């Protein structure tokens, strides 16, 4: 560069000094973030999960015998001529009386909603029988020993909160996640045939969104041969087994109705699901691939923690309440098929779940008053409906009632013993809104301790660290966020911003800050996610 050039530049610079632009920080409360919020409320089409297995978990031992004993102690079994023995704790008569009592308190609108629940339930059950096996009441009971043979059942706790519906029926301890072990329910050869047929039917040609993740797979209604096998197994194995496993709520295999049954395919490009709950009082998962054919996988139960992924080899099954928060754990390589189904009980209407789901639908339709009404009704039926509390809190957040939202989330978290990453995430968002940054960060950190692969969570925590000037931790969080979701643009952008602000302009020649009065523009933390609801 010659001296003249420098002189000219200096001359032009001197002639053109001007103050340009402000540096307003962006603040987000926008339709996009609202869309995202709503997106989180909407369950993906496939909320089913990876398979589960039993392995050698030490933290929760099998205690099902204790529970059964306890139930027997509480209620004398009432066995019918076919051998079905009812051990139900919360009787239908009790529930009807409760609804009648609430009807007086909550008025005719509540009773109308209850009637609508019944109609919808009936319709769902009817549709189920059109696609899936429904047992005849006269079918004789297969003895438990004969059914299981060498298969054993291990029971795990579902956490501190009982299922949303029929909560009184399930006694403590809530060891009602049932997993088969040792001898599988179905042989590897049988399952391999099912997968071969499913592939021929194009199961892997389809894709669905499950929360933030893409999954391959298809509904069994689109896979007739696979459905045929499933129906035969519902009759011979699964329904009788379920009746034995959950006598508290299942009076006979003839009342069980399968719905939303799908065969899911996990691999490295479609690795996992969000943590979620299932849309049925009970749900089951069947492992359809031998363990040696993939790396990773298994089911993450949030209340059990990151170190206790439940794995399940081919032919094994998990049977559990639908309201257990869980997710398909990441498959790193190979392919894993899992068959999942939600279950209804023809003789028991899930009023709490249906009221809550309708509330969620109303919220999506922007009828917030209607939504709150339904959450209140659901909570009147079950004050421990934590999803109702979380959903309601989301509305309060949207209305700017942050203190009330905080109270409601804390109420839910207390019930959940603070083992709910979504509720902790939401608490972090609300506390941030209230300006309580250090508490917000603490909530986010507790959430990450439960679910470290949550991109939005890592992102939001990164933003909070950035606001505090803690760029090292900020960038760590963006790194985690982009690892969890490589297409998370906001995290890439903020990470780049943090680097640029630190003088690292992707080139060692640019290590110092420049003279311009510019601030790199950041995205703000605006994601809000409380619960994946049906």
């Amino acid at each position, binding site marked *: 560069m010659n001296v003249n050039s420098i002189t000219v530049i200096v*001359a032009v610079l001197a002639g053109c000094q*001007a103050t*340009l*632009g402000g540096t307003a920080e962006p603040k987000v409360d926008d*339709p*996009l973030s609202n869309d995202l919020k709503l997106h989180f409320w909407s369950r993906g089409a496939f909320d089913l999960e990876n398979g589960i297995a039993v392995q050698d978990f030490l933290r929760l031992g099998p205690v099902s015998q204790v529970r059964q004993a306890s139930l027997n102690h509480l209620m004398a079994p009432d066995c019918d001529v076919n051998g079905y023995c009812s051990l139900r704790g919360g009787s239908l008569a009790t529930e009807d009386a409760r609804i009648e009592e609430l009807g007086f308190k909550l008025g005719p609108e509540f009773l109308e909603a209850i009637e609508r629940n019944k109609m919808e339930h009936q319709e769902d059950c009817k549709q189920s029988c059109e696609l899936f096996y429904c047992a005849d009441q006269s079918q004789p009971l297969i003895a438990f020993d004969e059914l299981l043979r060498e298969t054993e059942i291990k029971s795990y706790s579902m956490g501190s909160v009982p299922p949303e519906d029929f909560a009184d029926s399930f006694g403590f301890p809530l060891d009602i996640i049932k997993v088969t072990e040792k001898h599988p329910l179905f042989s590897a050869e049988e399952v391999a045939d099912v997968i071969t047929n499913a592939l021929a039917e194009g199961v892997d040609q389809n894709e669905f969104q499950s929360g933030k993740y893409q999954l391959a797979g298809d509904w069994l209604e689109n896979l007739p041969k696979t459905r045929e096998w499933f129906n035969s197994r519902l009759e011979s194995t699964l329904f009788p087994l379920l009746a034995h496993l959950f006598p508290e709520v299942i009076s006979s295999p003839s009342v069980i109705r399968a719905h939303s049954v799908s065969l899911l395919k996990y691999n490295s490009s479609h690795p996992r699901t969000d943590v979620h709950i299932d849309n049925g009082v009970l749900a089951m998962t069947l492992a359809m691939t031998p363990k040696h054919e993939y790396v990773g996988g298994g089911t993450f139960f949030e209340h059990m923690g990151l170190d206790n992924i439940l794995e399940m080899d081919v032919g094994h099954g998990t049977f559990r309440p639908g309201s257990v928060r869980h997710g398909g754990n990441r498959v790193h390589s190979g392919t894993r098929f899992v068959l999942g189904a939600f279950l209804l009980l023809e003789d028991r209407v899930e009023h709490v779940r249906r009221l809550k789901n309708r509330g969620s639908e109303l919220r999506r339709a922007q009828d917030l008053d209607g939504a709150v009404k339904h959450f209140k009704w659901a909570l009147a039926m079950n004050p421990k409906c934590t999803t109702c509390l979380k959903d309601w809190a989301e509305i309060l957040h949207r209305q700017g009632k942050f203190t009330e939202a905080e109270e409601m989330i804390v109420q839910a978290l207390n019930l959940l013993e603070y083992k709910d990453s979504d509720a902790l995430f939401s608490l972090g968002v609300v506390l941030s809104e209230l300006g309580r940054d250090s508490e917000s960060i603490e909530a986010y950190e507790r959430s990450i301790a439960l679910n470290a692969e949550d991109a939005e969570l890592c992102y939001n925590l990164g933003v909070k660290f950035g606001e505090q000037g803690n760029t090292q931790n900020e960038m760590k969080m963006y790194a985690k966020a982009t690892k969890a979701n490589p*297409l998370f643009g906001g995290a890439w952008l903020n990470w780049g911003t943090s680097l640029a602000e630190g003088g690292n302009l992707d080139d060692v020649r640019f290590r110092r800050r420049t003279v311009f009065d510019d601030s790199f*523009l950041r995205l703000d933390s605006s994601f809000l996610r409380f619960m994946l609801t049906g």
Partner: protein
Amino acid sequence: MFLKALRCEAKVVPKAMMNLGLLYNTRGNFLAQTGDLDGAKSASVDAAKYLDEAKHLLDSLASSGNLDSDLKTYFERYRPLRLQAHRLAGQLSAGTGDLESSEAEFRLATKNFPEESLSWQMLSRVLEMQGKNEEAAQALSRAKSLAT
């Protein structure tokens, strides 16, 4: 990082482009000060390219009613940032003795931002350097009238 953000969700793309524009403008400014005029010019061209693409996307979002408050902030930042990019590009041309290109850059600035005093101020300066005193005076007059 910003380049990776370009491959992500649509609403992030103009934001990433704006930051890339700023990044290259910053880089160009730094290189100019260290004497690397070719590098500075290249960075300046990239800055202008990203800013113009960002503006195009922001305009599209605005016309479809998708300009949220966050994007509005970016929208507001476009003008000062693009003016800086014009200034740097014009300065660099002038610095390498290419006063015609410098004039063209500053004329483009006045076309893009006719109500911006700085655009006319910059144009006036480079016209003056070329001895185009009458035009320079007119441009300066325009700059002053806009400044008041």
